[in-house]
């Protein structure tokens, strides 16, 4: 593979390397292949197994009608519906499995980016939306909304949920921020985050205990933490929000690289640090809120995935890290969801259960090796 190297005008000087583009491309291709494989497996495997040939056929048909429908302003809507309703298999495929796996992929990516941005912000490789209690905060506000505000708001749309989750994320981020100014130690920040997370969970449990049965039904379904409730509307909203987040993060890549040197250096290179920090927190909160609103709190993805990605890429270059982290998160969650769905079928596991099994050991490993990571 050809790496992008630039030779120097000076004699006898080595070739300067600014992030290894070759490795980056290789990792991206690898991750894409894994994602495709994961998606295929996800579509195939389940209580009703559908053969690859059938899947392919139905997909082509579905995409054909879908695209036609788009361009003819709904003329093919009926045909698409017919195609979907033609068999149980296609119904399962189009209404359950495909939206679910797409949601798992997109939200997995979003969660990882959210974690990555928090790590940049706190300059701490073991920060993540779940680990800092931010997901639990989002859950708390969503829970309160579902229990106490449902009667005033009538039908609760997914946008309301996202908004509630976003407010919760922001709230807890601010709380953690206040504490983070008083502790310098990376592990202490994590401990504080976990404690804040417990407090939020306690508040949520408290609300549940004193709520009507009717309201709790909504909540428990949601807080299971799984992608099982996915439908196309969710996918559309999630894709929009996550792509926005991804784009915004990519545009911040240059500032992220300068910020890695420290606040004062970043400032001396012309970066508006206050604005940059605000943008980081907002993007990270939007992304983790989106995940929490659709799938409940999911643990360890935010920490583990950026670490895996960094290890694969062998560079911290943000412009490479952001897309690769997104893709890696998608792969991670698609496979975790596959396991959650199939290992004890027909009983489904929480997605968080599976991500913890794989993510927590990585986090422990990072904590143990943090002396080395601090680079001192």
């Amino acid at each position, binding site marked *: 593979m050809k790496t992008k190297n*630039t030779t*120097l*005008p*000076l004699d006898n*000087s*080595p*070739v*300067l*390397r*600014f*992030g290894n583009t070759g490795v980056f491309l290789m990792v991206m291709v690898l991750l894409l292949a894994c994602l495709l494989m994961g998606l295929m497996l996800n579509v195939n495997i389940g209580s009703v197994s559908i053969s690859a040939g059938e899947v392919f056929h139905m997909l082509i048909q579905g995409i054909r009608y879908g695209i036609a429908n788009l361009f003819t302003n709904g003329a093919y809507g009926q045909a698409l519906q017919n195609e979907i309703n033609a068999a149980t298999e296609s119904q399962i495929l189009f209404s359950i499995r495909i939206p679910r796996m797409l949601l798992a992929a997109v939200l997995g990516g979003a969660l990882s980016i959210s974690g990555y941005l928090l790590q940049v912000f706190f*300059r701490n*490789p073991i920060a993540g939306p779940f680990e800092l209690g931010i997901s639990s905060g989002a859950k708390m506000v969503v829970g309160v909304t579902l229990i106490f505000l449902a009667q005033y708001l009538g039908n609760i749309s997914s946008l309301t949920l996202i908004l509630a989750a976003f407010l919760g994320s922001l709230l807890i981020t601010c709380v953690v921020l206040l504490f983070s100014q008083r502790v310098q130690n990376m592990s202490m920040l994590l401990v504080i985050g976990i404690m804040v997370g417990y407090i939020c969970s306690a508040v949520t449990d408290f609300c549940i205990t004193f709520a009507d049965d009717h309201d709790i039904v909504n909540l428990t379904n949601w807080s299971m933490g799984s992608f099982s409730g996915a439908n196309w509307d969710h996918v559309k909203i999630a894709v929009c929000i996550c792509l926005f987040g991804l784009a915004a993060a*990519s*545009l911040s*890549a*240059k500032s992220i*690289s*300068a910020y*890695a*040197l*420290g606040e*004062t*250096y970043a*400032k*001396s*290179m*012309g*970066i*508006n640090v206050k604005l940059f920090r605000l943008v980081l927190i907002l993007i990270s909160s939007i992304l983790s809120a989106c995940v929490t609103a659709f799938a409940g709190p999911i643990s360890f993805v935010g920490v583990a995935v950026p670490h895996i990605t*960094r290890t694969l*890429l*062998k*560079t*911290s*270059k943000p*412009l490479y890290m952001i897309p690769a982290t997104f893709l890696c998160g998608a792969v991670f969650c698609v496979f975790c969801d596959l396991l959650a769905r199939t290992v004890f079928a027909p009983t489904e596991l929480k997605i968080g259960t599976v991500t913890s099994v794989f993510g927590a050991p990585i986090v422990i490993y990072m904590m143990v090796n943090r002396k080395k*990571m*601090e*680079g*001192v």
Partner: protein
Amino acid sequence: MERYVNIDNLSVGYDGKVLIHDINLQLDKGLILTLIGPNGAGKSTILKTLARHLQALGGAVYIGGQKISAWSAKEMARQMAVVLTERVRLELTTCAEVVAMGRHPYTNLLGKLTPEDITAVAEALERVHAMDLANRDFATLSDGQRQRVMLARAICQQPDIIVLDEPTAYLDIRHKIEILDILRNMAQEKQITVVMSLHEIDLAMKVSDYLLCVKGETITAFGTPEQILQQYSIEKLFDLQTGCYNPFFGSVELSKPCGKPQLFVIAGGGYGVSFYRGLQKRRIPFATGVLFENDIDYQVAKTLSDCVVSTPAFTPMKEEQYNYAAQLLLDCPAVVDAGAPIGALNQINTRLLSLAREKQIPILTQLS
């Protein structure tokens, strides 16, 4: 005529509290200004205010005739680069990438490096002799290497003025010299103005065109190193109660042993220095003589002993000095012969030795 850097009635401090006020100075382009002064005097505060990391609490700084507080962040970044004391923690980042961060104010939205940017990175690395480190992971470098790479990053920013906060901290003597040499070359060849703080007064004297002594609420002195040396004592600047700083050599002597002299050291020509220092370590008060005032021994002796018998340079020693020295010698239980050469002008020292022999005072030739 307007000078390049013009600091006009500047007040600096933290949180609205003024620490140092009425800072006034002018500096031409391509010169090195060094801030010296005790810890906590506010050197860093002044530098941070210059670099706009702290807001000026009064007055203004003009660079190239423009008020720096009016510059945009990007303009500022193209005019001024900084090297700070804070430790940089980076993982999986090569030195070339670190240096390339200096191109930040010049690159596009995504930070893509153009061939000119890469040439600038290479030149900066070359200038700090760190080309061999280019593809090394920054986290694996030693302190000296890190400092050079951080300096390269600042150079790569192609500023007109570089602000450095204690660039030689943590470095051993070889790397201190390396860094300061690089700065001197940059000032000379590229006409880059350097403003920095240093702890090593001797190095500050040698590398700087101007010194600024920072202590207390106002600037205590500003001028060329020679002017500062003449009109202002370093002991005063640092509140040296014990010990002594010798501005000629930039060397430091520890506090002098107090009390009645226990030994008389016959020295001269630099032979006495190691004896004086050895006695200082053992906390033994001593007298010494007879020394010419241009002797190295004299420079050290006068800071370590209260009883130094000396004579003006290039004049023969006189009887009166002999008498004084003999009196001191006879009061001491022992005499040290440092082995100094005796010539036409210091025959008195031979007489002192004979006197010691005559009075059967033990004569040591080395400290046990």
